[in-house]
């Protein structure tokens, strides 16, 4: 370590003093983190060990709440719905967003105006968006079925059908958040060097080859950033689902968040809700680690 490079006695004292001073500087941050992150966390884990419904006394049940949720078919389904929703709501905007970024990266008339129009959905309030889409989904009076009828397709039940509800909700997410992916990837495209393209063209590469072997690897880090943001957003998606379907029909679109909301704020089962939060946290942590791992890998391939 660096102690070897400095005179021994003075160096140690200096370092000790420095360490003390540093501690003073980080103390406020530590305090805040402790108060708003660490303490609530420990308290949540503590609460998850109790059978506690607001309005009645709490009983210690150990891992009873975890046993309850892991044996609950409904919670299992909620986890599956969450993964299904997240997978669709991440992949679809990434594909469409990247494609849109490629389109908007080219020079064409009114590009600025069209770019502006394209990112408009992102500026709308999620709850307002959800309410408007609810009306559009109405099986008898919604505009979507009217549009289908114009092109000769039979009407769909959209969010009113147990099997179509999650893809329909993803449709809203795609409309709402593809522009964000487009913006991030567009930023990446703007920063790309032009030389590799010139030499590849000289070597006779096709447009697809240019995209697949030059553009895609170079913008991959940006796509990954967009993927991380989308994953976080999709996992925590609540407002759209809550407003449009409330988890229904039945429990067909009930994600972990909806399940959690019901337990905590509708049934007031604080113990169960805390256990759900802990499990959800573990899932989020696992997904974060997975994404970090993927990021490390893309770094290695691009190097």
């Amino acid at each position: 370590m660096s102690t070897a490079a400095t005179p021994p006695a003075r160096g140690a004292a200096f370092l000790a003093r420095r360490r003390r001073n540093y501690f003073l500087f980080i103390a406020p941050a530590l305090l805040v983190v402790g108060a708003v992150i660490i303490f609530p966390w420990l308290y949540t884990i503590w609460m998850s060990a109790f059978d506690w419904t607001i309005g009645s006394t709490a009983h210690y049940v150990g891992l009873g709440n975890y046993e309850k949720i892991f044996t609950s078919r409904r919670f299992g389904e909620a986890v599956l719905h969450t993964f299904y929703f997240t997978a669709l709501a991440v992949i679809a905007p990434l594909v469409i967003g990247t494609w849109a970024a490629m389109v908007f990266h080219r020079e064409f008339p009114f590009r600025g105006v069209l770019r502006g129009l394209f990112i408009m959905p992102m500026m709308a309030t999620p709850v307002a968006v959800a309410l408007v889409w609810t009306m559009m989904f109405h099986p008898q009076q919604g505009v979507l079925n009217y549009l289908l009828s114009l092109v000769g397709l039979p009407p769909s039940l959209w969010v009113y059908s147990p099997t179509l509800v999650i893809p329909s909700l993803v449709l809203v997410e795609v409309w709402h958040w593809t522009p964000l992916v487009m913006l991030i990837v567009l930023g990446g495209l703007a920063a790309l060097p032009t030389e590799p393209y010139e030499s590849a063209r000289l070597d006779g590469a096709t447009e697809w080859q240019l995209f697949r072997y030059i553009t895609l690897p170079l913008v991959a880090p940006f796509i990954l950033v967009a993927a991380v943001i989308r994953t976080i957003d999709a996992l925590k998606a609540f407002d759209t689902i809550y407003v449009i379907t409330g988890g229904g029909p039945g429990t067909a679109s009930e994600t972990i968040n909806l399940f959690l909301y019901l337990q905590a704020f509708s049934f007031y089962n604080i113990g169960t809700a805390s256990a759900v939060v802990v499990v959800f946290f573990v899932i989020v942590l696992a997904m974060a680690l997975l994404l970090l791992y993927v990021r490390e890998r893309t770094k290695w391939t691009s190097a």
Partner: protein
Amino acid sequence: MIQADITTEETMADHDRGSIETKRRRLLQAGASAVALGVVPGAGQLASNAQGAFDWKKFKGEKIEIFLVKSPRGDLLTKYHKEFEDLTGITVNSEMIPEQQQRQKAVIEFNSGNTSFDVIAISYHVQKRLFGKNKWLEDIRPMMADKSLADPNLDFADFAKGGLAYATQADGRVDSLPLNLDPWVVYYNKELFAAKNIAYPKTFAEMVDVAARLNDPSKGVCGFVARGLKNANVPVWSSFLLGNGGAFVDANGKLTTDTPEAVDAAKMYQTLLAKSGPQGVAGFNWNEAQSLFLQGKAAMWLDGIGFAQPLEDPTKSRIVGKVGYGVMPAGPKQQVSALFGDGEGISTYSKKKGPSWFYLQWASNKANQTRVLQAAAGAPVRNSAYAAAQSSSDFKAPKEWVECMLTSARIAQPGLPVIAPVNEFRDVFGIALTNMINGADPAAELKKATAEFQPILDKSEKA
């Protein structure tokens, strides 16, 4: 008795106290109007003490916090707070937030042992048992009985019985004053009925038959529409359950939600919605049902009585003047309208109970109740409000609606069980009902839901 379908425990308690009260009151005073007061213990004392000195200015200079639900009724009260301030010299500070959030905030504050508000608006169908069990609201009987605190013009006989029953807890405590009732009724499209020369159904069997005959998918018209969305849909089934003579819970706290009466009600629900209902009804809440009915695309719509205003509004409705307001048809056992309602109570943690009690009396007075009806903001508890509103020139609701309301209120019974975990009840049975629309077997679904909910109910009553 309005609570007859709840646990016998509660009914017995009401009954005993009612008869003791009646005897005592007969000693104190005689009068036909007093019979109507029998439901509310303590009201008799109020009437007998009512001649004492009462002064609205008694709490002059004090300040109270009111916690209301954002709704046309909350808006109305807030609009006239100045009137209360001028009358009493008490300053009113009020907060009004949407229903769901208001309920959550209330539970959390009560649970913390301290509330930021003195007076709170409550929904009986959801909160009665929870608040009663925890004694979160102040028993107002002592204040009603105190002649220096009770307004001599309060006139309890004027309150609809259903409302007073709602405000009375199983143990006899009266911890709120009722303000608004919401019995369920059948809105029907007279034009569609007339086109096929069909009369409004009088029984459940006729209702199912009429719905099937009026259902015409080729024209985009459905015979019947109501809530299919889980949780929201439970009162639709309750409406049928009560008419079948069924109940939610028996005397021993056992659910009776898988009895033949309950299964028949569920079958009727399934038949009406799946066979004569619109496509996608499993996801319908009242707003989807309403918009369909407004467009003239549904022959019958079963829901709360508070929707007359949009139906008669030419800017929103295509069926102005063609809407029939039907009392719930009679079931095989009885004719019942499922009832919902709300009122206001005083937080037990309030340090200003006197001024809060004054506010309650003002909020439920005849003028305020009449205003609710005039604005078509709901169906007030006071019977006198109906006569008063109808005599005024700017009253727009149809006469038929008023008659429907008065008849329905007379045959009303609580549309949800008076238990603490009401939301969970609605969720569990709501899912079962939604599954039925999508083809599941009613008996099996109810059996499953009953088995799932029984432990939750047991736990809530033990704690």
